[in-house]
């Protein structure tokens, strides 16, 4: 049952990702992208990474994509980009992307690397889950071992926000 669900959401994620590129309207692309994120989040649940699944939906599908939708609707983006697409370039890019993806998938399934987590790492994760719970297992290393990179990332985002404000104010 779980394997079936896993492949179901796998196909859903890939199909929706293709839909993002192929959809004719920007809103359609956006909804396909939300579907992709949702399907990936479902994959996380099936892999027992509950916290990642929740964060994926809350942050990406629930906040960032809503902002995208807001902008697309406010500017009422239409089809004026279509004439910029040249068939030759487009099909070349298509061939490159598809063959690269096929190569990666083929390499992974041929046994390049193991897919399932096993051994000491898996046991460590299991122990952390039992001790701290689904959220605590992420929070514990994030706020102890990796607190400096975490804070630096936060400052980076703050810098980006200030930069965006400066640019917006200068134009106005």
């Amino acid at each position, binding site marked *: 049952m779980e394997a079936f669900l896993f492949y179901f959401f796998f196909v859903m994620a890939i199909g929706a990702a293709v839909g993002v590129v192929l959809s004719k309207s920007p809103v359609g692309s956006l909804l396909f992208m939300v579907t992709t994120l949702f399907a990936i989040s479902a994959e996380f649940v099936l892999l027992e990474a509950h916290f990642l699944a929740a964060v994926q939906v809350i942050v990406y599908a629930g906040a960032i994509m809503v902002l995208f*939708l807001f902008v697309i609707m406010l500017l009422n983006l239409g089809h004026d980009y279509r004439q910029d697409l040249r068939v030759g370039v487009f099909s070349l890019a298509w061939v490159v992307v598809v063959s690269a993806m096929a190569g990666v998938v083929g390499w992974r399934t041929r046994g390049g690397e193991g897919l399932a987590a096993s051994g000491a790492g898996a046991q460590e994760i299991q122990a952390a889950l039992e001790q701290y719970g689904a*959220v605590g297992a992420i929070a514990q290393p994030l706020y102890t071992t990796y607190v400096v990179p975490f804070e630096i990332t936060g400052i980076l985002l703050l810098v980006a926000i200030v930069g965006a404000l400066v640019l917006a104010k200068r134009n106005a």
Partner: protein
Amino acid sequence: MDYQPISGVWSYVAMSLKVTLIFTVVMVVVAYTTLAERRVSAWIQDRHGPNRVGPFGLLQPIADGIKNILKEETLPATASRVFFILAPILVLFPSLVTFAVIPIAAPLPTPAGVVDMIIADIPIGILYVLAFSSLAVYGVVLGGWASNNKYAFLGGLRASAQMVSYEVALGLSLLAVLMLAGNVTLTEIVWQQQQLGMWFAFPLSLAFILFVISAFAETNRLPFDMPEAESELVTGYHTEYSAMKFSAFMISEFGHMVTASALMATLFLGGWDLPGSWDNAHWYQGQLISGFAADGSVILASPALWKTLATFGGFAAKTGFFLVLYIWIRWTLPRFRYDQVMSLGWKVMLPTALAYAMLMAGTILTLDEIGLAYGFGYGLVLTAVSGMATVGFVFMLDRGRTITGAAAQRTQRIQTKTIQVGEAGHPQPEEAA
């Protein structure tokens, strides 16, 4: 007697029964909340309200349902067909699935094992609710956009801005609850309130107030119903919808109300917990316990059918209280202006929630460092700190207008009257105001 969780074939039976039962009950409650809204509004406005269909109008929701199914559906010629049909589906789905993680009663003992009165006790609990409620905005926004109608579109835009803004305050006010409970699953949050000996509404009073305000904004209810402000936008994002599609929007709005009420009851009023420790029950290392003795050993719980029923009654009463509060406030307060909604969200709620989360984190850390045991005394200290924060917040929010303002007006009025009495022979209106 040693209690074990239900397992094997019977667990599937119990699960399907629970899903069917809870879904049915939520839908019936939604239907009767629509009736309650009309009856309570009539009562507040000194009218009769719908009282013709069945005794006291009790069959009105059924009549409304039949009417909505039989009515003609319209599809605007310029609407984008796919999104127009997709929107009511998207809006209905999140409001119905969020109930799955809310515990509704004490565990029920059956011959095959103990059944937890919750559909899915998943490890992320409240985060699941946040995830799905953040998806609810898509249906509203898409409905507004796909209608190809200016009013509907404005309603959709407002909804997206408002729901994103208040989600921040909602999440931050939740932080205090999660810090005190130390876990994100709702069963654990109920259990911690039983252990603390008081419901979180007291030790986290300001978080409670902020959460209730944000929940009102998230469900688009008055005074925050900007997306469907009748006086400005016809009916906002569902202007172009008719018959059952319109009904889907209504069901989802009331479904959100029911879920938000249940959530407020669970987070701040102890969920299904009733006063006293007789009903406490929680799975701890494979045993169903009701608490810890002074020496740290466990006290086993004794679940019973009457306890389950009594706690379910308590849960229903608390949820019902918030539902009535929703309706009561709708017919009491006028609608905010759009800029007022935004400035309340970003300039008042967000900084307050942030400061309060810091205050509570500091207090909880200090109490833990001192080594005060988690219990009633612990709760009292938090209640005192939160109480001061709440008084400060109300005072700041008042800005000398409502509470102090009314007092000032009263003294002024008394003075005016005294002057009028003094100037005899000059008939004047009784009050200058």
